[in-house]
């Protein structure tokens, strides 16, 4: 049978080559797609082929058979790439690249499998082995989706939901990233910063006069006036360092979490409903510490321009 079919097949290939048809531009049955998301410095990347349901009523239990180990994609297995260690549904997943598989079942949990061999064809289903990461997930029923899709429907300060849907089955995976900086600080370290400070924004003219790293002044800098000074209190509360402005320079900045990036270097962080909302990493708060006690601090923006100074109140 094969020997008889070969000349026909070879002839078709020959015709295609002879006609110079642009094979590279052909539409694939399952086009390749990518999706990636960065959360607090961790990048989560999915690469997968995207099969279409093409009118099939039941993708699962039909095209994908119940009990089958299936890659949620097509052709070459879907890959998950992580540039830092994460947790997915509470399971540790070290940084690296994995092929992604799911054992699909009609009426019970599915099993998600991350295999350390990333380059596998969809028919090369990996056998179970100890260095695989396997855990159960409960698929949800949703209105059908024609094209198999991976996306990030939810992003949090500490992670994201990575979801897959094809047909009416939706599988959410809860990814938790490793925090780039801890929000807590040891009490003995925090103590050196705690206190009340006179806080003042630095006008251009003042900067030029006092900052040895000063920049060229703008033409009208002689008219520059600083906004009114304000009070800034650093407190240690619930294991974290906080800055309290009075008055606040902007709504929502009355109380900011100070996240320690290095010795004496902090980033102010806005909070909402007790959760981190936004870390202002383009505002560096640099404390000046001598003999275990901060005498003040500077605030510098991205280009290291000095925009505010604070001096500890007597």
């Amino acid at each position: 049978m094969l020997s008889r079919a070969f000349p026909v097949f070879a002839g078709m290939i020959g015709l295609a080559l002879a006609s110079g048809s642009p094979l590279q531009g052909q539409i694939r049955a399952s086009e390749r797609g990518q999706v990636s998301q960065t959360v607090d410095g961790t990048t989560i990347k999915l690469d997968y082929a995207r099969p279409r349901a093409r009118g099939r009523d039941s993708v699962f239990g039909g095209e994908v058979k119940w009990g089958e180990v299936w890659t949620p994609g097509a052709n070459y297995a879907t890959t998950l790439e992580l540039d830092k260690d994460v947790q997915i549904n509470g399971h540790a997943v070290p940084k690296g690249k994995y092929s992604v598989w799911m054992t699909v079942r009609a009426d019970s949990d599915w099993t998600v499998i991350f295999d350390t061999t990333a380059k596998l064809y969809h028919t090369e289903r990996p056998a179970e082995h100890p260095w695989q990461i396997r855990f159960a997930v409960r698929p949800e029923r949703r209105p059908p989706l024609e094209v198999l899709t991976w996306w990030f429907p939810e992003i949090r300060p500490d992670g994201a939901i990575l979801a897959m849907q094809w047909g009416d089955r939706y599988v959410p995976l809860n990814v938790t990233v490793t925090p780039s900086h801890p929000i807590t600080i040891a009490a003995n370290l925090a103590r050196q910063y705690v206190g009340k400070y006179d806080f003042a924004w630095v006008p251009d003219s003042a900067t030029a006069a006092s900052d040895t790293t000063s920049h060229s002044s703008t033409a009208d800098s002689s008219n520059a006036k600083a906004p009114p000074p304000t009070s800034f209190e650093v407190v240690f509360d619930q294991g974290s360092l906080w800055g309290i402005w009075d008055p606040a320079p902007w709504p929502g900045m009355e109380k900011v979490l100070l996240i320690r990036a290095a010795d004496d270097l902090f980033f102010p962080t806005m909070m909402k409903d007790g959760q981190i909302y936004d870390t202002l990493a383009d505002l560096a708060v640099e404390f000046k510490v001598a003999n275990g006690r901060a005498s003040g601090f500077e605030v510098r923006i991205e280009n290291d321009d000095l925009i505010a100074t604070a001096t500890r109140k007597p």
Partner: protein
Amino acid sequence: MYNDSSRREFVFLCSGAILALATGFRRRTRQPASCHYHIRHVVHPEPRPGITAARVLPKEKLTDHPDAISAFEQVRQIPQIVDGIGCHCGCATRAGFYSLLSCYEGDGMAMMCEVCQGQGRLAFRLHQAGKTLDQIRAGIDARYG
């Protein structure tokens, strides 16, 4: 109160942009298209033996970017330090890039990149404070990584 708009406005305020319009505070420079903004992990290169600041752009080439002049002047004073620093803005993918010093040479992309300027100025401040190259690298990674 906590929407992205107010956040952006706040950062803008802090960076002096709004104040620049109102009271003559300086304005921020624009990021160049090649500046990808905060690459977290960089490999710091070893400074090339005998490296000098001969190719760092002079003040005369920076007339359109006066705010960047001080960064170029500071980098010019410590080429052997800046040549040992990787750049966190993503410009390391550019042809001919070796170190942060490269950002201040050639087309001088640092004149439009606040991350490049900030790293140069911070390197200068830390060097002035007596920090070693490794300590300067650590300081830059903590701030821009």
